[in-house]
């Protein structure tokens, strides 16, 4: 099993009347509520936490891209990755990912990732995401074009990284007469690719065809199981069994010395994430065209509930958060491992809400020293029979 420390870089200082006064902490949430002095201190603290995870022996440290939101303060994940290249030395630096669906110029992403790969000595993992619904409002990109823009940007970036010669590009959304990447990435043929999935069969096939890592996003275990099985089936259809490392389970984690303390401290953090950080209107989640009518039908009939309505207890029971003492967390993750049919990467969201720096450092340290050793042997072989967990 490989372990990553994923930082969402939230802006946790929401007003007391947030729940009644605002639909969301994104898109239209007034930026007068952002205090630059606090924000500056948060960046310093958050980078310290990522660097600490590197020192503790996490295999990866992860950042992502979000816009116009208190949910996450990283409009440019590549800037954060650049900062990490100079003060970490072991962990892979995972950009999960660049939102290439909403970028105006995807060639710039190819250039920046290539730079990061060189600066980090070949430690970059490159995730690509479409960008979430509200970002299509915020960056004025037509959501109807989301998937075609994503696919075209992906194809262009891969070709830019790998082509040994200048080429021209004439696509539906982008045209370049001269693509001639300087610098080229260090890793050959290019940095490993991560793609988050949320149930789309098209995405499962896309990842399986290219042997990209398929990672889960917030969803109950029974639904993530369906996604992972879909990816495994897509690989089987192509005649191979995916390396367990190509399947990554991402989940919010909070560890403290005892169960009692973990729940007392972890509850407000998990509740902040799901009830405030991810609070959105349906119009923000699914702008027109962001999903195909068929996919929307699938989501609506799958019984998935809005993220804002599940209680803390429901979130724990459904595998959407893992909280407890080191022993409890190890046991719970072992159970989830079995219920999900196995996975070779665990991407822990350790910094997701109004937790203090001390709490994040302690949770991360306990996980690294007491949970990782227990789970490390899992996920190294492809076939996992249910119940094989410790």
């Amino acid at each position, binding site marked *: 099993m490989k372990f990553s420390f994923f930082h969402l870089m939230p802006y946790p200082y929401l007003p007391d009347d947030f729940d009644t006064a605002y639909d969301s902490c994104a898109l239209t949430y007034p930026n007068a509520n952002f205090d630059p002095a606090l924000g500056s201190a948060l960046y310093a603290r958050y980078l310290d936490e990522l660097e600490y995870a590197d020192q503790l022996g996490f295999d990866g440290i992860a950042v992502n891209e979000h816009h116009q939101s208190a949910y996450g303060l990283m409009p440019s994940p590549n800037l954060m990755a650049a900062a990490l290249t100079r003060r970490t030395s072991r962990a892979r630096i995972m950009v999960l990912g660049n939102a290439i669906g909403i970028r105006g110029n995807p060639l710039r992403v190819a250039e920046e990732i290539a730079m990061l790969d060189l600066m980090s000595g070949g430690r970059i993992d490159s995730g690509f995401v479409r960008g979430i619904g509200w970002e299509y409002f915020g960056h*004025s990109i*037509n*959501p*109807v074009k989301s998937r075609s823009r994503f696919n075209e940007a992906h194809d262009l970036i891969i070709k830019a990284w790998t082509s040994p010669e200048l080429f021209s590009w004439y696509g539906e959304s982008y045209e370049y007469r001269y693509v001639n990447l300087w610098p080229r990435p260090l890793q050959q043929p290019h940095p490993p690719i991560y793609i988050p999935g949320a149930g789309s069969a098209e995405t499962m096939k896309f990842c399986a065809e290219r042997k990209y890592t398929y990672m889960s996003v917030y969803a109950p275990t029974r639904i993530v199981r369906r996604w992972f099985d879909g990816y495994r089936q897509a690989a089987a259809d192509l005649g191979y069994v995916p390396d367990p490392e190509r399947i990554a389970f991402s989940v919010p984690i909070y560890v403290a010395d005892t169960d009692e303390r973990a729940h007392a401290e972890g509850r407000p953090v998990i509740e902040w994430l799901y009830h405030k950080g991810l609070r959105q209107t349906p*119009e*923000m989640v699914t702008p*027109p065209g962001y999903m195909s*009518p068929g996919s*929307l039908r699938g989501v*609506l009939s799958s019984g998935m509930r809005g993220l804002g309505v599940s209680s803390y207890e429901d979130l724990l029971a459904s595998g959407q958060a893992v909280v407890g003492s080191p022993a409890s967390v190890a046991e719970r993750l072992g159970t989830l491992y079995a219920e999900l049919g196995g996975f070779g990467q665990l991407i822990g969201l350790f910094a997701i809400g109004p937790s203090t720096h001390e709490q994040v450092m302690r949770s991360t340290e306990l996980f690294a020293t007491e949970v990782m050793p227990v789970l490390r042997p899992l996920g190294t072989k492809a076939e996992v029979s249910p119940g094989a967990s410790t």
Partner: protein
Amino acid sequence: MADGAPTEEFLELTGGRVHLLRAGTGEPVLFLHAAGGAGVWHPFHQAIADAGFEVLAPDHPGFGKSDEFPEVEAIDDLVYHYLDVMDALGLARPHVVGASFGGWIAAELAVHSPHRIGSLTLLSAAGLRIPEHPVTDIFLLPPAKLVATLYHDPPAAPLTPSPDAPPDLDAVIAAYREATSLARFSWVPYLSDPKLERRLGRISAPALVVAPSDDRLIPVEHARRYAARIPGAAYAEVPDCGHAMYFERPAEFAAKVTGHLSKHSLSAHPLAAAESGASR
């Protein structure tokens, strides 16, 4: 209402099928529907037919029962689409009436092919970019606020099911499909063509611009700007009415439209003699 229900038909074009409602006899009136209202035959339409006109109401690409026409990507494609529709229907120079989103299409059509338009009626048309009077973002409005935005006096009975009612999945998917089609044509620039305003001087047909007095979606300044820029355009307001227009004040809107159509009979046009026999 003399003739009752309209006939329903499908036009076969190269890119797919267009669903069309038709009723009445007389000079042809091509009606271009708003973002809502595809495939709806309203008392407003019947009133125009009853006044002695043949009303032809097609569904836009990706709306109602019309096919997607994926190659129709933007407003310029819609103009060519409707030129195809007019040709398929044998409409050489019909009256053209457009509401809201359909009004934008009508205005673009009249700018592109002024000689193909017998008369033009714009009912609170979208299409202009007026930064100091922005159009409300319809894509971000939750259903409850949408009703309050569309009506001057929102109906007491909810137009949308209560949150407790089990969702009608087919209706949700159908609404999402139409919203997707609208977004395809109008996400950005938002419900407008920044070049349209300076082209409006090309319009030669007699034009009427009608605005509901209390339009909370498309500010009334848009209608006034259309009236100011289209040569010789007449302007009228319907009081105590919101953007829902003929859903809120059907008789008043029908009267404005039929008054304009009757005043500008196609046969009175200088081109009419040359065209006689050419049109259907």
